[in-house]
């Protein structure tokens, strides 16, 4: 195993790095607010809306992400082939955002459940409205409680981006597989593993820093 080969392979795999990073950032940025919104809906007074979110979370948490990805890409393109065609990247982003927002909804719901009812009572006897209570007291604590689980999800997300392989979006694993087959040499898999590890190390450090900043 010589160094120039490793460098060459790394360079090839880095062509897929962009797709991986793009999906990661997009999914995180979209699914956290959507998940949070769903948590708020779960607490609203309109029952049908709550049922809708519950069913949504139930289905998306209860079926494999890979299946969801295939349904969104192949399924939609088959069903609506006469009208439009979803691009692979769009389908992948859509499936990931749908799936991850369901998880984030559950994480934030757990965060809310962890907050002592004494906090609500204190706000009430101090005369604060429900909205003021939620904005100033409950939600900031919810994010703090949920942060370790959010970090955990982010790390899972880095690894899940490899599922893009299934819909042939050229990302890290795609190039690794091609290189391995071409050269009959598994170095590319090892390099791919190292790239994922480095990404997760960076993100873990970043999220730990955010967690520390949010600590009180």
């Amino acid at each position, binding site marked *: 195993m010589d160094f120039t080969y490793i460098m060459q392979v790394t360079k090839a795999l880095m062509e897929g790095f962009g797709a991986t990073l793009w999906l990661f950032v997009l999914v995180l940025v979209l699914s956290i607010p959507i998940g949070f919104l769903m948590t708020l809906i779960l607490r609203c007074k309109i029952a049908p809306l709550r049922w809708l979110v519950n069913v949504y979370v139930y289905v998306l948490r209860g079926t494999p992400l890979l299946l969801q990805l295939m349904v969104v890409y192949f399924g939609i393109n088959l069903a609506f082939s006469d009208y439009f065609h979803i691009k692979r990247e769009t389908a992948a982003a859509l499936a990931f955002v749908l799936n991850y927002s369901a998880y984030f909804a559950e994480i934030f719901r757990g965060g809310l459940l962890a907050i*002592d009812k004494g906090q609500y*009572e204190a706000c009430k*006897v*101090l*005369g604060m409205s429900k909205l*003021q209570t939620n904005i100033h*007291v409950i939600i*900031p*604590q919810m994010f703090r409680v949920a942060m370790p689980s959010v970090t955990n999800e982010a790390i899972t997300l880095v690894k899940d981006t490899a599922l893009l392989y299934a819909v042939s979006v050229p990302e890290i694993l795609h190039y690794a597989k091609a290189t391995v087959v071409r050269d009959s040499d598994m170095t590319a898999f090892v390099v791919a593993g190292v790239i994922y590890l480095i990404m997760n190390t960076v993100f873990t450090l970043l999220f730990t820093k955010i967690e520390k900043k949010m600590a009180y």
Partner: protein
Amino acid sequence: MAFIQVEELKKSYGSLEVLKNVNFTVEKGDVIAIIGSSGSGKSTLLRCLIELETINGGTVKIGDDYLIKDGQYPTPAELKRVTSKMGMVFQNFNLFPHKTVGENLILPTMLVKKTDKDTAMQNCRLLLKKVGLEDKIDVYPKYLSGGQQQRVAIARALMQNPEILLFDEPTSALDPQLTGEVLGVMRNLAAERMTMLVVTHEMSFARDVATKVLFMHGGEIVEAGTPEQIFNNPQNEKTKQFLAAAVR
């Protein structure tokens, strides 16, 4: 006419009657100690007065306003106006853990009374000084002892400028050596003629500071009187039993 009048107050959870027929009056500046064993309804009584529990029947009049009249609540706005005359201190302090001591004090007044920040801060420093914690203004609650946290909670309740303060077992979550500093603050408030209703297991506080003691048993006030009457010459069998066990 009494400052607080409670008549035939009833509260039940389903078929379980936790407050059966509670009657008492409080004068301005009174310190009422509510004593009794666990499950006698003393905390529930306090929580009913500040609308943390719904009352099922009876009349509560505070000043000239009705919190509830013959089992009928007023409009939500009126109810809020009546309860805003009261502050409450909890067993578990219930400070906001993500806010500093200073923020704990100024946030509610700024939100509820729309006090500007400078005025709120001024008041905040004054009250923290009163409870002996002016140097803790920028500290987060978790760095304080239980006794200090409870003193902050008292200061936070005072920020709203209440006419009546309710204390729900304010020293029950504290180590014995920390109860003194909290009771000290409460003694000072009593000396300033703050009207207080205190659910407590601190018999010495009830004996020394209270102007009136209510003994509760089974959801009723079975005996009420001055501390001398209750502690030195209890009439009811249940009171005698309770005190024999409590004051050893």
